[in-house]
């Protein structure tokens, strides 16, 4: 059992959890993820680690409720427990002194980009952060990202906060006005693909973190395979970060559709009967 020691709401359907997982906390490096299973009939899902506190033996994750498992997770709070947490998995982000770097976070991708942004700053880079969201209410972790970067720009689709426009609008402007040496983009697949196209003409080194479907997370099943250049790679052990200009985003999107029907069914059931399920899971937590 992995107790939830803190939980707070960051935005609509977005929640942050601090979980006691001493082994993971001790070894975590920016860019790595965990796999968790909430209860005995649950599925295994990967979630990137936002931060780790070695002394407290805890890790922090940010969860957006999309499907059944994330919705169930977001019903839990301080004092509840998660049955299984394993990690840290995947390769850490490559941290070097590149010069001027732009870190782009779309939606909850901001949480994932945060530790890498801080590590890039600590490595002596000038870090510019761009946060993208549909509207003001969906901007999360603004203060954290401001603390981890030298400059921060916020872009909203409707202009309700920061500037109106896409993250790529700001990125293009920065490339033209000051030159950019390295870009990290984490967020929805269409956003990452757009960033890759934006930096391709000048061959600016660009890295994205891929969220393909996983089961074990240790390279054992190959379900998370993605096409990188002309070769098949496993996001769980070869990634999750890859050179954005080599990623076949079409295959990634197609493979993420694999269980759409099942996911919709599970979510519909959860909407109907989720209350009972949540009660049972919380009861199991209480019984240890």
């Amino acid at each position: 059992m992995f107790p939830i020691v803190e939980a707070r709401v960051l935005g609509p359907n977005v929640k942050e959890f601090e979980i006691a997982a001493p082994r993971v906390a001790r070894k975590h490096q920016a860019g790595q993820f965990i796999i968790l299973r909430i209860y005995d009939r649950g599925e295994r899902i990967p979630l990137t680690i936002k931060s780790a506190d070695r002394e407290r033996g805890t890790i922090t994750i940010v969860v957006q409720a999309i499907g059944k498992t994330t919705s169930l997770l977001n019903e839990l709070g301080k004092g509840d427990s998660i049955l299984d947490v394993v990690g840290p998995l995947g390769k850490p982000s490559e941290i070097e002194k590149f010069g001027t770097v732009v870190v782009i976070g779309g939606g909850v991708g901001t949480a994932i980009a945060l530790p890498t942004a801080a590590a890039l700053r600590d490595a002596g880079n000038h870090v510019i952060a761009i946060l993208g969201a549909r509207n003001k209410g969906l901007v999360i972790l603004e203060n954290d990202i401001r603390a981890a970067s030298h400059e921060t720009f916020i872009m909203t689709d409707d202009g309700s906060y920061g500037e109106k426009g896409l993250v790529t609008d700001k990125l293009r402007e920065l490339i033209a006005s000051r030159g950019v040496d390295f870009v990290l983009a984490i967020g929805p697949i269409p956003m990452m693909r757009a960033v890759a196209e934006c930096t391709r003409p000048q061959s600016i080194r660009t890295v994205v973190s891929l969220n393909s479907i996983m089961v074990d997370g240790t390279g054992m099943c190959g379900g998370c395979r993605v096409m990188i250049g002309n070769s098949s790679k496993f996001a769980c052990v070869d990634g999750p970060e890859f050179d954005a200009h080599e990623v076949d985003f079409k295959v990634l999107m197609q493979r993420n559709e694999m269980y759409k029907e099942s996911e919709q069914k599970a979510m519909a059931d959860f909407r109907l009967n989720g209350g009972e399920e949540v009660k049972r899971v919380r009861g199991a937590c209480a019984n240890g």
Partner: protein
Amino acid sequence: MANTIPNKERMKMPRQPMPERHAHARARSFEEVNLGYDLDLVALEALRCLACAKPACTSGCPVGVKVKDFVDLIIAGDYLGAAAKIREDNALPAITGRVCPQEDQCEGGCIMSKRADSLAIGHLERFIADYERASGKVGIPTIAPRTGKKVAIVGSGPAGLSAAGDLVQKGHQVRVFEALHELGGVLVYGIPEFRLPKEIVKQDIDVLRAMGVEFETNVVVGKSVTLDELMGEEGYDAVFVATGAGLPQFLSIPGESLNGVYSANEFLTRINLMRAYRFPEYDEPVYDCRDKDVVVVGAGNTAMDSVRTALRLGARSATLVYRRGEEEMPARKEEIKHAKEEGVIFRMLTNPVEMVGTEKGWLTGVRCVDMELGEPDESGRRKPIPVAGSEFVIDASVAIIAAGTGANPLVQSTTPDLATNKKNYIVADPESLRTSKRGVFAGGDIVTGGATVILAMGAGRKAAKSIHEYVTTMTW
């Protein structure tokens, strides 16, 4: 009671068949196929043993089970005694009684196999293990006084469990680390319920726990903790790496990224470990195979497990595609027989060349080419050669690749002083199982490449013996 039947008469007694669930009833059910002997069948079968002076059954067994002795105890009616006798050499008898390739090992050595059918040693072992479990009187072997030595075992599959059982008996403190959330390794993620019920694996593990073995799940050694940390701050005197061959091999043909193409590892893990066949009661999904055509590529036990699982998920057709002939299939004869009875279509001398699918990326078929057998290759088997112009497509919504596994690199990649061969398997001395790194031993599939449960268990026993010597003397 001793066996008073003359040997000549014993030779004439027929081998008692294993009672099975009917093919029609079982082909759509995850319930166990083999039902097990009853008391009458056991008594009859045991009497067939010729009680050889030099039993080749024991020498044919990778863990050296004393077959003659336990069969004697069966004849005497002492079933719990027989169980204790097996446990002296084999920590997982209910498992090996079900999944060992006995025909190549104990039963292959049986003198009767030369002239008639061998003694059904596997069926007897299974009966004894099940009898012991049902009696609730599982005999815990004697545990030596505590030595104060600590041994870490990486992986809770057959090699790791077998080593743990032997080492804890010697009085060492033993802790088994498992990457997944459930213990048993390939016994729980790989082998399906209808061949090896998970409850049996759990109970054999509970016996090890009662013997004092500690288990920790959700630890990926190499990521959550390194070998150096285990032997450093965590204070282990020795480590046994038994991580298995968990790296799926794909075919490197076009279309393997299509939705519907699985590695056997993924397909079986979803079903066995995650219970996806019970979706939506369980949350992990698997492609809905009902009324779909499924193709499985390969010819080993994993391919058989995959294709028979597809049938049980309600597939309209389940076809096995193999580039060589049926004679060359590495799967156990019993698995092939069961698969055929259940309605699996066998397409031998057929090799997939492309996965074909829709514009949107969903699999619709497997393009194959006919093969013919040429001269023997380095494996001694006749080499399959494509027949020009013979390409055709087998309709399929799901294709499962069961073409072998490679070495999972997680431990090796974070242990630079651990020598590996060019295929990235760990190099270990064949007798002592010592690796290039002091205090580290390795065995099972991570050294040999994909093999069988019992060979991994044999490696586990060997490692335990060698580790015991090392931690006792602390000389490398």
